């Protein structure tokens, strides 16, 4: 029996299709994945496992593991094994390869890099300006030339067709036929160096006692993806991590993500420190500076006026200031007096509301999933509107 070509070897085609559906499933789940603990606590290079309910093949099935028949010693009532919790009905022991594949929740493994790529590919640091000094470079690949030799994967189909047509037309038969090696044209790429202006990113996090584990987790996941994003997109971006309660200090990256602290809140300390550091290391004439601050907004009331002044000063220096306020209350803290009404702007946000500046962006996050929106808002590619 001779089989039409397109019907042969479908396994490969369908497994590619399956891979494609896995990717789609991941994209649909980004909102949830971005706050997935397993990913954020992984060591960075590890492959992460993502459960994909989207790829389940639904059918009517029984909800609890059914009984089975085994063999060997034992009396009725004897315990012969144990299944861990959250049993999904998987049979213990070796057993037969089931005749119903894919009955379990499907998990895929993916590298963190791929995941970051998918999540953050459309984002960019906004308001990037050309600065005269020190260029940050990144490399891209671009098709720049066409040649007669090359790999078939890079075949330039349009030019190849045109050449064939031209050659045949020259012989008086203007139609596409009889391909010859001379017709083939291949695209050739070059490594292209793209120069960016210098950029520095300041990440400020409130570590006071009122920042519960849940809130801190939100802030950390934001900064985690922020850092991943910067590393992926811009090869040489300087990062500065500042943690503060009443006092602020510059901490190494590692510590920033593991830090826990207690105490009151005095945001001005962080702005002060950031301002000083900025002036010294990243002056506005040669740097695009971005400053992101996450806090629950419960600032020491007398400190608010100072904050306002400092932020206004920072705005003059920075390309952008982003402020995220976390109203996430997974565990009711005993600092109950602080967050009595969660709908009204809290002290710090109300202060920032008085400042009207295009480059002061603020978001409110009330659950884990909104981290994704915050990233989207802060990193929206924006053109310069007033130069």
């Amino acid at each position: 029996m001779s089989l039409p070509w397109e019907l042969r070897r479908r396994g490969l085609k369908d497994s590619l299709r399956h891979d494609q559906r896995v990717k789609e499933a991941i994209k649909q789940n980004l909102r949830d994945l971005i706050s997935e603990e397993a990913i954020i606590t992984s060591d960075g290079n590890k492959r992460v496992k993502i459960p994909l309910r989207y790829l389940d093949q639904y059918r009517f099935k029984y909800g609890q593991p059914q009984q089975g028949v085994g063999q060997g010693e034992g009396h009725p009532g004897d315990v012969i094994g144990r299944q861990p919790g959250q049993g999904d009905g998987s049979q213990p022991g070796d057993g037969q390869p089931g005749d119903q594949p894919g009955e379990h929740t499907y998990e895929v493994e993916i590298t963190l890099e791929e995941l970051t790529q998918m999540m953050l590919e459309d984002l960019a640091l906004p308001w990037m300006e050309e600065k005269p000094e020190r260029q940050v470079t990144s490399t891209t690949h671009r098709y720049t030339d066409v040649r007669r030799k090359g790999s078939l994967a890079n075949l330039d189909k349009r030019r190849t067709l045109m050449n064939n047509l031209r050659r045949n037309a020259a012989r008086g038969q203007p139609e596409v036929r009889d391909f010859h090696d001379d017709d083939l044209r291949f695209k050739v790429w070059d490594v292209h160096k793209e120069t960016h202006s210098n950029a520095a990113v300041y990440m400020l996090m409130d570590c006071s006692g009122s920042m519960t584990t849940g809130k801190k987790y939100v802030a950390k996941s934001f900064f985690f993806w922020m850092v991943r994003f910067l590393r992926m997109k811009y090869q040489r971006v300087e990062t500065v991590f500042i943690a503060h309660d009443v006092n602020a200090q510059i901490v190494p990256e590692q510590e920033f993500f593991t830090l826990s602290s207690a105490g009151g809140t005095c945001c001005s300390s962080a702005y002060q420190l950031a301002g000083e550091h900025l002036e010294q290391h990243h002056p506005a004439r040669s740097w695009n500076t971005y400053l992101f601050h996450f806090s629950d907004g419960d600032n020491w009331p007398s400190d608010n006026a100072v904050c306002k002044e400092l932020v206004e000063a920072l705005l003059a220096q920075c390309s952008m200031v982003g402020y995220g306020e976390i109203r996430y209350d997974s565990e009711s803290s005993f600092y109950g007096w602080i967050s009595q009404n969660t709908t009204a702007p809290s002290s710090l946000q109300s202060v920032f509301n008085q400042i009207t500046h295009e480059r002061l962006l603020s978001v409110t996050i009330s659950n884990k999933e909104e981290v994704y929106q915050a990233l989207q808002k802060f990193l929206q590619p924006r053109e310069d509107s007033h130069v």
Partner: protein
Amino acid sequence: MFETRLAEIETLAREQGLDFFSTSFEVVPQDIMTEIAAYGLPTRARHWSYGKVYQSQRLYGTMGLSKIYEIVLNNDPSMAFLLDSNPDIANLLVAAHVFGHVDFFKNNVMFAPTNRNMINDAVTHAMRIDGYIERYGLDTVEHLMDIGFALDRHIDPHAGVNRQPYPERRVVEKEHPTQPYADLFDKPTPSITYEVEGEAFPPHPERDLLWFLTTYAPLDTWQRDVLHIIREESHYFYPQFLTKIMNEGWASYWHAELFHQYSGVNPDEMLEFATLHASVVNPGGRYSINPYFLGYTLLVDIEKRWDQMHQDGASELTGRQKLFEVRRTEDDISFLRNYLTIEMVEKLQLFSYGNQNANPAKPRSDQSQEIVITSRERDEVVETLLTPRYNYGVPQIVVKDVVKNELYLEHLNRNVSFLDRRYAQETLAYIAELWKHPVHILTHDEQSQEVYLVAEA
């Protein structure tokens, strides 16, 4: 060399009374083997789920964790695949095994209604579906196939593949004899009543969900065709599901039997054969029994018992004759009920087991479960073995009623177990998508209370 021996074994098999379709063998590399096994047929309509199976099977194969020795297709003529990396002796064993399978396909009564031209028909199915993909897009067709596969085991094997729609509403004449067997005594004076037929819709609880939806849901012609293809292929595979234990037992019995009588192997090869045979019919693990082993052991036992009875004059049939009768008439359910005796349950040390919560105070979701031996009684063991074999291995769901265009399903034998709620809800949504009106199902919740689940269109 191999071909000669293959022909000799075929001749031997026919001499022994095996009656099989002519069978062609094809020797293929592992990768092709994996691919055919993933699809179930050499060429079949494409779907991403086959890709998923193929991918993981291929990985296992490359890692040397699993090896597919044999694929044989129920078709006339039959077609079998052998692995090119196997030694000759392994492939000869497989060939002998294959003759057993094909004899079973041809003669077992459950296989009588199957399509013996499925290899070719599946190709035309694949081409038709490729055409729909071209016209309506991969996503659309794939999604419809997702729905079809969700319901593909809800068929009615007795009603067959090609069914007529329910009768239209009409009045029928029914004769009622005045007394039983009146016609025998030449007194044909029946009373006649008139009954209305086709009033209820469906006229009886309908278990062939796929047929019902294909026939009565508001679908396009091509959509009906896709669902019909899935249903037809599901019908084709049903007898194989229903006779797994017997079929494998029968094939294993015959490869052993043929090699006992075949003289064309040298002692080294015989040793290799014995090793391979032992691994094919290995008993299995503590928690599960190898169906090859169970089927093989029971058949050997039947032969021994009937030979004894024949000798004692208690049976006209010899052991071998009895075996041929069994292979013609039984399926796994009747086979185990009739021939898994108390003695065999004891000899094989079989028991049934079930789960029990280790700590009933905790919620069910994070319970660790203890596996406990529940019984060693023969009936209990047999029924536990049979439970997953009823109704194509899925819960029994029927179409009960249609009220104001809304579809009412009922889960029968609800006391067996409750449905997985999330899966049921999603499957219901699939049905509603076809039906285009709300769909309800009557089932049990986890506390065995009756509950209706609904999916909006």
